[in-house]
């Protein structure tokens, strides 16, 4: 949602309260008499009011417009772990055709998604997967393993494969962060015996908290060679702490983050390695996949699919591949606006 639309959106529900008005403006439930029935795709991010997922939403809306489908969007506005399940169960009774979901909770949400499938609703996942039996396709920007290995290998390279490093994550309970941490630790144990993960701190998904944690880590572990930030607000937070401690370049930073939030630090050389996929394309591809699944053009066993402006996209098993993540550097970061 653009900020310019903000006031219009606030006004919309006010009109919706006038009896009848909501009905007449209701394209979604219009009976499919005159034209063929429009497909309804419901799009569920892990959380709302989050730059990562609002960028996803932008791409998703663009795809929905191209495909002329009705696009529903809702997501948790707080940290209640039951919220995603409730939204899916509500969408089942609402009567949508496809649900595209970024799962906060791999196993927790599978029951609700299976219920949807039993009612004939197609399910695709994006960003983070559920159990494979609860969806038809997963729009895969990177596997847990891929992310874990990229971060750990990257950190090892920055440190010369030896020394201490610390990690900052979103919250201790966030499911996908924990999956990544597991992969990072597994890779560490398998390949880098001379490196040591000294501490992991949560930053509650807040930049300022990440900055404070990083400040503490830097002075509590004077031999620290690298900070790995695995949630997007933690990357600029850690960078600011390193900069204020006067350790730019001496303590390396690697993380998963948005170019728009890290541009200055990458250019100054505070942050060495920033990894992320094209988030807008991720949302776009999720809706394209959802559409293709609902139309029957995408079936199990297919090796490629056509995805609008992304052209031909590869499929591995039931994973639709977005392509390799970007590594943003001084030289290319200005090309990315998200």
């Amino acid at each position: 949602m653009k900020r310019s639309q903000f006031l219009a959106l606030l006004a919309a529900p006010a009109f919706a309260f006038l009896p009848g008005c909501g009905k007449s403006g209701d394209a979604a439930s219009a009976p499919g008499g005159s034209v063929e029935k429009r497909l309804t795709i419901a799009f569920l991010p892990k959380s709302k009011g989050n730059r990562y997922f609002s960028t996803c939403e932008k791409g998703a809306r663009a795809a929905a417009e191209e495909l002329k489908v009705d696009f529903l969007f809702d997501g948790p506005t707080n940290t209640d772990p039951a919220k995603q399940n409730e939204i899916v169960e509500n969408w089942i009774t609402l009567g949508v055709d496809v649900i595209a979901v970024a799962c906060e909770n791999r196993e927790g949400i599978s029951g609700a998604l299976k219920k949807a499938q039993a009612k004939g609703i197609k399910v695709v996942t994006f960003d983070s997967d559920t159990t494979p039996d609860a969806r038809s396709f997963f729009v895969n920007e990177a596997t847990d393993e891929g992310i874990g290995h990229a971060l750990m290998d990257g950190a090892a390279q920055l440190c010369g494969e030896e020394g201490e490093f610390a990690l900052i994550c979103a919250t201790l309970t966030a499911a996908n962060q924990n999956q990544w941490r597991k992969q990072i630790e597994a890779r560490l144990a398998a390949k880098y015996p001379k490196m040591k993960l000294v501490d992991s701190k949560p930053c509650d998904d807040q930049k300022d908290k990440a900055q404070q944690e990083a400040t503490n880590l830097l002075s509590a572990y004077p031999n620290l060679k690298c900070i790995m930030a695995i949630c997007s607000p933690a990357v600029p937070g850690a960078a600011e702490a390193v900069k204020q401690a006067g350790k730019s370049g001496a303590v390396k930073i690697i993380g998963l983050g948005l170019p728009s939030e890290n541009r200055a630090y990458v250019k100054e050389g505070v942050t060495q390695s920033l990894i992320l996929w094209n988030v807008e394309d991720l949302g776009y591809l999720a809706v394209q996949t959802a559409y293709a699944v609902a139309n029957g053009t995408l079936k199990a066993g297919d090796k490629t699919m056509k995805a609008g402006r992304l052209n031909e996209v590869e499929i591995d098993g039931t994973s639709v591949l977005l392509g390799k993540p970007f590594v943003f550097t001084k030289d290319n970061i200005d090309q990315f606006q998200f």
Partner: protein
Amino acid sequence: MNRYFRELSVTGALVLLLAVLAIWAPHFYQPQPLLSRFTAQTPALILTIGMTLVMIVRQIDISVGAQFGVCAVVAGLISASGAPLIVALAAALAAGAIMGALNGVLIAWMGLPSIVVSLATMVTWAELLRLFQQGKFINLPANVQWFGLSQSAGQQGLIFGSVLLLAGVSWLLKNRSGGRHIYAVGSDAEAARLAGINPKLTTFTVFVIMGTLAGLAAVLNMVQSPQVDPKCGVALELRAIAAAVVGGVAVSGGRGRLWGSFAGLLLLATINPALTFLHVEAYWEKAIQGLVILLAVIADGLRSRRQTS
């Protein structure tokens, strides 16, 4: 001694924690990180000053975190547009004062319970902010950070300014009639009214001050980094309330001192780094904070029980 029991016991606990750190983790006292750590607490300190006043007047305000977030985004957007910092500061203070005044009108003049009113306004500001900003960071021009000064000058300025404000408000509370009115209304609004104080006006003013301080705190937070995170206010109200409570401010109103709240804030704010320095796992933090709050009030309860029996 007895009069200052709570404030002194909290200060004692803080000194103990600092002593433990001095023995087992002397790195804690490296000057530059210590300065950064202290500077990072100045916004919370400003909020704690306001919350102490609110609690002395026998109210509570759980919307301050959301107010802080709104003010941060207001100040951030204005700074990002290239306007001078003073304009951003004025706008943030005004925004805070307006939000505080709304709380004040509902609580003081309509007589509605502050905990419920501020719960409703918290939800309102937080949701509007989310809809408006969508979690987008605001990148600030280079001259905003540290007011355009050097880092250490900026940090020292922030600390000096906040502590000066603390001392000033503390003095006003004790020595000026307006300050005494806050205590009077908090301990017994009816008696205060009979003594010629306007309890409604006093309560209203305190909420406006609280909102204005939230605006100030947001700006002091903004100048510490080149970006504004719109989620920066989340859960700050709990920190301010906990600091005041641990520092001996009574929720039943009429009792409390700012330096007690200050000690409470420092104690709570030292726990988090202490865990890092003493190599305690992060998942103990909440339990330990809860325990500190409980110990502080239990000590209080045991003492007052011994006195009455």
